[in-house]
């Protein structure tokens, strides 16, 4: 009996100590630099072979691959970007395994089209992915909307208008697709069109991440418009007075403007020498084309949230 207790005590101690040691050793292994990046490797890259190997349980395998895609994109993003070499193969496998996995097209297209270092910067593959999605899910107007958005991003307004039109003809399609098709065909490159696109996205999605992204783009459009308008006023001021204003207060006291102009986040714009107008905190306002301080490099991960 005593011997049995001794064995139990020794075995329990060895078990606990060994597990603790194993955990500590694993942490050391993780800290050691890897000889080759396993993250950059796909053991089986053929979707057809994977489909055969999973014995009909391809739905679960597609979910696993989609989760792996999200994890891959997220980890690369956190590390500051890079080449995203595996993004397309992972998305291709995911959508071949489950052609009806809509989030893989919606988000995958965004991951692929986003410019480096924020994404793969591969619009060709983004179009190929979403086009395959529209073929496999011909009644889902959201995918035509996403396809149009990619074309729009590439300034290919003709194909964007066509995708909007095809989407608008589907049952239950949102009415704004028809308007967007016409708008795109006539005024593809306008800021007004861009505002309409992002407003529609903001209003029609239930996804908080997409909403935050649309809101950030809408703020950027607002800043682009504001900066252009304020710089125009600065030029008018210069024509009338013969010099650039040093501060906005000078323009207020001369009744050119009613107050210090504020960006969409409520921060005052800044006036630089030479009449350039810039935002005070560009990190809070991603996707800007205008109003950026000279030499500013945008962050790899855009700050979508406006909370401080």
């Amino acid at each position, binding site marked *: 009996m005593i011997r049995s207790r001794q064995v139990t005590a020794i075995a329990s101690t060895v078990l606990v100590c060994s597990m603790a040691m194993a955990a500590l050793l694993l942490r050391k292994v993780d800290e050691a630099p890897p000889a080759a990046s396993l993250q950059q490797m796909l053991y089986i890259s053929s979707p057809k072979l994977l489909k055969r190997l999973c014995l*009909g*349980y391809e*739905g679960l395998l597609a*979910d696993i691959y989609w989760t792996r895609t*999200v*994890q891959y994109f997220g980890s690369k993003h956190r590390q500051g970007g890079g080449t995203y070499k595996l993004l397309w193969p992972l998305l291709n496998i995911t959508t071949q395994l*489950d052609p009806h996995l809509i989030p893989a097209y*919606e988000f995958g297209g965004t991951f692929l089209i986003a410019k480096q270092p924020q994404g793969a910067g591969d619009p060709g593959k983004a179009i190929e992915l979403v086009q395959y999605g529209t073929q496999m899910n011909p009644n889902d107007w959201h995918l035509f909307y996403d396809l149009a958005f990619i074309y729009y991003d590439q300034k290919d307004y003709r194909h964007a208008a066509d995708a909007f039109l095809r989407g608008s003809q589907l049952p239950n399609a949102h009415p704004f697709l028809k308007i967007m098709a016409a708008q795109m065909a006539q005024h593809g490159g306008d800021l007004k069109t861009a505002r309409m696109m992002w407003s529609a996205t903001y209003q029609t999605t239930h*996804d908080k*991440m997409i909403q935050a992204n649309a809101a950030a783009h809408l703020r950027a459009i607002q800043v682009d418009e504001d900066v252009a308008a304020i710089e125009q006023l600065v030029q008018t001021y210069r024509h009338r007075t013969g010099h650039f204003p040093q501060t906005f207060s000078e323009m207020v006291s001369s009744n050119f403007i009613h107050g210090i102009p504020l960006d969409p986040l409520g921060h005052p714009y800044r006036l630089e020498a030479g009449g350039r107008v810039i935002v005070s905190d560009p990190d809070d306002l991603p996707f800007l084309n205008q109003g950026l301080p000279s030499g500013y490099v945008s962050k790899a991960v855009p700050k979508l949230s406006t909370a401080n």
Partner: protein
Amino acid sequence: MNARILHIATNTFREAVRDRVLYNLIAFALLMSAAAVLVGQISIHIEKLVVINLGLTAVSLFGIVIAVFIGIGLVSKEIDKRTLYTVLSRPVRRWEFIAGKFLGLAGTLVVNTFFMAIGVFAALAYVSHHLESADLGVLVALYFIVLQFVMITALALLFSSFSTPIFSAIFAFWLFVIGSFAQDLRNFAAMAHGITRFLATAAAYLVPNFSALNVISQVAHGEPVPHRLILLNTTYVLVYSAAVLSGAVLIFERRNLK
């Protein structure tokens, strides 16, 4: 039903419970809880899909493993323990023994699936906050999974009636794998010529068709399963299992148990 078959079936069920077969439900419950809670945090927009895909795949694979590993021992274990002689010395015929064993294991798997189905629906209700009428498609997928179990149980029993447990397990698993490629086998047969075509077609119709019984992806996307498919699959499984069980009875009837 014949009272003797019922007795053997009940005893088979009791024995499976005593063998702690239903312990797999604990692993299943942990799997579903983890999936329901974790997937939302590590993926995007597939919480419900994962619960359905993972839940139904787990129900299917757990059940197939149970069906094979219990099924292969149904006859051989009774011979090894010499309990078969006690049973057969009573007024029990050999075919009744086979039928009772089959019904007992099939019943165990139905009970097991019932509890797992509750787990799947509970996880589904947790991730989507409510159940919709489209979720009833999950019931159809579960029904098809039970049909899979019926076929695999019959096959395991057939192999158990003449082979050793290890070979029975290998045969049953291989037939499951080949049966999952039944559609590809038929496509191959359609493309082949001459004797190859004949042999491939024969093989395609001989192996159990498990591929038609897998509608997990379809129901996960809320796509309806045609009533005609339900009827045809049910009839197919009943007919195929009857054929396999008849084979098991024929072999077992002629087996020298001395």
